[in-house]
């Protein structure tokens, strides 16, 4: 039936315009189902073969006052027949479900872009709530002349589509997001099968909701098809991504899968201790679903219990993992020092958000780098690695477990709100593609006196789990005597131990890949040096700059502590080094002090990611000097 509809629709096409890439921003009240609409369009586009990148942007309040700007939820999707690195700077299409959504987002719409407005959200009440004080609708005062305005009374059409339904009006109205989705599917010539299957599964317990959502989805599609107003449809062909099998993945989900994969490849169960916090909680939700992988999830009473329980589990031979965001990471500081002192595997994930203090819980920032590298009492070095995109989270989680286990150390993963909830296609590996992880477990006494802090050639002590006869020993947070691990207050010994612990971490540089140049030449006039979630925006900017003839290169770091061994030499190949970061200049401080290079910061601290246009503008300034 639906296929017939689609064929009919195709027959009615008046014109079809091909586009390379499109950015759509869905915006509405936080109860309007915006995130769901956006993620459905994303999944459908990804399955169709487009490259995609998404950016959900929602308020901290679960139900902020309806109709107000504070309550606006947004979901930005960039999809294309070319490679896509960011969710897009400016959008081609802005969908607004009410006046507040328009007011909050109009500046993100390109001049000449398409504005789809739900007229029902522009009544006097909504206009006033959104701050259009005089009650004059922007849809009617000719202020939107720079855009292609499509007005649809979504609420009315949704109710009409459900005329025969026995649902109440309130319940009917809840499916109006499906009308918009159906209309956009028509506009971009998309099949609806993925969303139809999703609806059937989501509402499996209430058949009347399956019927109503499917009916409204179809009504939206047919509205585009039958209404005379819309003369053009668009086509965005599949992207030439590398050959392979793909799926869609979000950052937090990829972290969870990376941990489970590392668990399999090391033969050790994951223990995940965590206290709910935005934007890290989804890792807990994802892991809790996979108990059949022997994943042990523990929702602790607080952040400190979350990390210390993970330390206890590591002592017991599990891979202890904990995750949080800035405020929670601050609480974990003392326990991080303990893990350092014990020399025990531990993975700590910081899904960064705007700070300081409670800061901007749902907004992104990279301001916890120095906290991760230096933020402990005493000299307590911890390896720090950062993920650059949602799919990269998988590799980073796997790598973090490898380092933690094989080098007997806590390891920091830095992600952020932008990556955590963003999605992109992922050429997923098979389990055979993943290397094995080798824990330095000692499983029996060898007859000699057991020395729990005797090191191997990497500077790593053995991992001895309680339960093994003859290897009974005590560990703790007090300074310990070299090799024996007994308490020692000897001054010479303390200096030795501080150095041994630092050397162990520095030597990890021998076991990580050399740094490569992501874009551009090994020698050029200007280097963009970056880490974390800014990768996509900087890569796009750099590609365009190189295309435009600028002598620019891009190096993106995964390993921040220790740095890759060749980084210092690489940096010498460039006239200028600029370091764009979503903070006031943190990596730049580290690079300047480590390599004596005149690196300069490019800072943005607005709770929002860089646009590639912003990066380009900064670079071009250097060429105008």
């Amino acid at each position, binding site marked *: 039936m639906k296929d017939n509809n689609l064929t009919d629709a195709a027959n009615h096409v008046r014109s079809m315009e091909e586009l390379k890439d499109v950015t759509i921003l869905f915006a509405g009240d936080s109860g309007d189902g915006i995130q769901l609409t956006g993620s459905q369009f994303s999944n459908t586009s*990804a*399955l*169709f*073969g487009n490259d995609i990148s998404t950016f959900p942007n929602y308020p901290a309040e679960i139900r902020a006052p309806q109709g107000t700007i504070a309550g606006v939820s947004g979901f930005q999707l960039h999809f294309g027949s070319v490679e896509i690195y960011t969710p897009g700077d400016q959008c081609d299409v802005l969908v607004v479900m009410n006046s507040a959504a328009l007011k909050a987002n109009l500046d993100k719409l390109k001049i000449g872009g398409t504005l789809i407005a739900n007229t029902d959200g522009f009544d006097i009440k909504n206009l006033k709530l959104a701050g259009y004080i005089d009650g004059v609708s922007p849809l009617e005062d000719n202020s939107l002349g720079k855009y292609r305005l499509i007005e649809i009374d979504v609420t009315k059409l949704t109710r009409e589509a459900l005329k025969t339904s026995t649902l109440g009006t309130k319940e009917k109205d809840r499916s109006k997001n499906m009308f918009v989705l159906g209309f956009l599917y028509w506009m971009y010539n998309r099949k609806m099968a*993925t969303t139809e299957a999703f609806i059937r599964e989501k509402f499996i317990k209430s058949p009347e909701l399956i019927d109503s959502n499917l009916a409204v989805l179809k009504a939206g599609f047919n509205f585009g098809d039958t209404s005379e107003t819309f003369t053009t449809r668009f086509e965005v062909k*599949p992207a030439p991504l590398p*050959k*392979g*099998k*793909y*799926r869609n*993945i979000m950052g937090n989900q990829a972290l969870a*899968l990376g941990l*489970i994969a590392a668990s*399999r490849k090391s033969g050790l*169960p994951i*223990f995940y*201790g965590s206290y709910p916090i935005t934007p890290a909680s989804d890792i807990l939700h994802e892991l809790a679903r*996979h*108990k*059949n*992988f*022997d*994943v*042990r999830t*523990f929702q602790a*009473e*607080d952040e*400190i*219990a979350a990390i*210390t*329980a993970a*330390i*206890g*589990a*590591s*002592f*017991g*031979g*599990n891979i*202890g993992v904990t995750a949080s965001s800035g405020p929670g990471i601050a609480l974990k500081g*003392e*326990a991080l020092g*303990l893990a350092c002192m*014990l020399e025990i595997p531990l993975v700590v994930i910081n899904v960064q958000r705007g700070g300081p203090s409670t800061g901007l819980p749902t907004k992104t920032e990279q301001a916890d780098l120095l906290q991760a590298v230096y933020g402990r009492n005493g000299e307590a070095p911890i390896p720090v690695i950062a993920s650059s995109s949602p799919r990269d989270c998988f590799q980073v989680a796997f790598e973090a477990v490898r380092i933690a286990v094989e080098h007997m150390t806590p390891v920091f993963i830095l992600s952020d709100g932008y990556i955590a909830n963003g999605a992109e296609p992922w050429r*997923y590996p098979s*389990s055979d593609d993943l290397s094995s992880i080798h824990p330095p477990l000692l499983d029996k006494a060898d007859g000699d006196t057991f020395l729990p802090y005797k090191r191997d050639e990497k500077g790593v002590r053995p991992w001895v789990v*309680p*339960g093994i*006869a*003859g*290897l*009974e*020993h*005590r*560990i*703790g*947070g007090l300074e310990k005597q070299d090799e024996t691990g*007994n*308490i020692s207050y000897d001054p010479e010994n303390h200096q030795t131990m501080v150095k041994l612990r630092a050397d162990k971490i520095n030597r990890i540089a021998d076991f990580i890949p050399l740094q490569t140049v992501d874009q551009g030449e090994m020698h050029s006039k200007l280097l963009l040096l970056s880490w974390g979630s800014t990768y996509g925006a900087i890569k796009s900017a750099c590609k365009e700059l190189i295309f435009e003839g600028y002598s620019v290169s891009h190096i993106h770091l995964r390993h921040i502590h220790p740095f890759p061994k060749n980084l210092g030499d690489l940096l010498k190949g460039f006239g200028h080094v600029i370091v764009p970061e979503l903070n006031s200049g943190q990596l730049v401080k580290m690079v300047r002090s480590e390599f004596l290079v005149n690196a300069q910061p490019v800072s943005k601290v607005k709770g929002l990611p860089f646009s590639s246009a912003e990066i380009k503008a900064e670079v071009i300034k250097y060429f105008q000097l």
Partner: protein
Amino acid sequence: MSNTAALALTSKDFTSNQEVRWCPGCGDYSILKQVQTILPEIGLRREEIVFISGIGCSSRFPYYLNTYGMHSIHGRAPAIASGLKIANPALSIWVITGDGDALSIGGNHLIHLLRRNFDMNVLLFNNEIYGLTKGQYSPTSPEGKVTKSTPMGSIDHPFNPLALAAGANGTFIARTMDRDPKHLRDVLKEANDHKGTSLVEIYQNCNIFNDGAFEVFTDKSSKPNTAVFVEHGKPIIFGENNSKGLRLDGALPVITDLASGSFGPDDLWIHDKHDRFKANLLMRCFDTPKPDGSSLPRPFGVFYKESKSLYEQSLHEQIADSIKRKGAGDLDALLKGKNTWEIL
């Protein structure tokens, strides 16, 4: 887990080669000795036992036992022990903590450990003072206590640790003292036998910063009137020549003179450790002791014991159930997910 080899162990086998560094005369010595005495009797091998402590004088404990151990950070031993128990439920875990460690900086972890009911033992050394930091008042110090940090006397109302444990739905709650080795050993053994989190408060004398804090309960002259040792199924009797008892007048404990002839042992409160309500009354007997016998005596013994599901067991049952329903995790299927496409 017990076997003949384990039964052949002696207290010496549980003594580590580390020099014990508590102040001479500290109550901790007695507790260490009683623990080393009962360990060979409970039938576990050394490698099956883990002592986890926080920070404070008592928290040096693990170093002195030749078992596995961790001397961790202030207040966090219950959380570390929880993670360890999940990692390996077969281990016998003993949390060693003090009044500051367990009730002040680590209060949150203690109450959550108790409500979750992991199978482990918590020995709370209560000396009503901060010893390691040289003598500040603790959350169990009595009101008016003059210390370095309270030169005009403490204005804090102290915790009643056992009432707190009961409020957190602890499943085994007991009190004993360093000066009564036999009682201490008996309580420790019963705590170890309990399947669930066993909280044992041990009155422990700090002879340097709070000497004699519990003397009124241990000194021969005052002890009969101030301390009562309760036993399951027996009437609650105390006083010189067992001349007094506790009787329940409604829900009110009343000191009853058995010598007068008006009341006999049959009229007394029979201790039932399985009775949540009566156990709560017993734990609430927390009067400031008066040697003349006009205050309610401080009870010692096992007040409450309840059988309840164990956290670690339930967690592993869910894992087993998930494997039964979904099959052991297939990594390739997980990586693939539900919706995939191929680019050729």
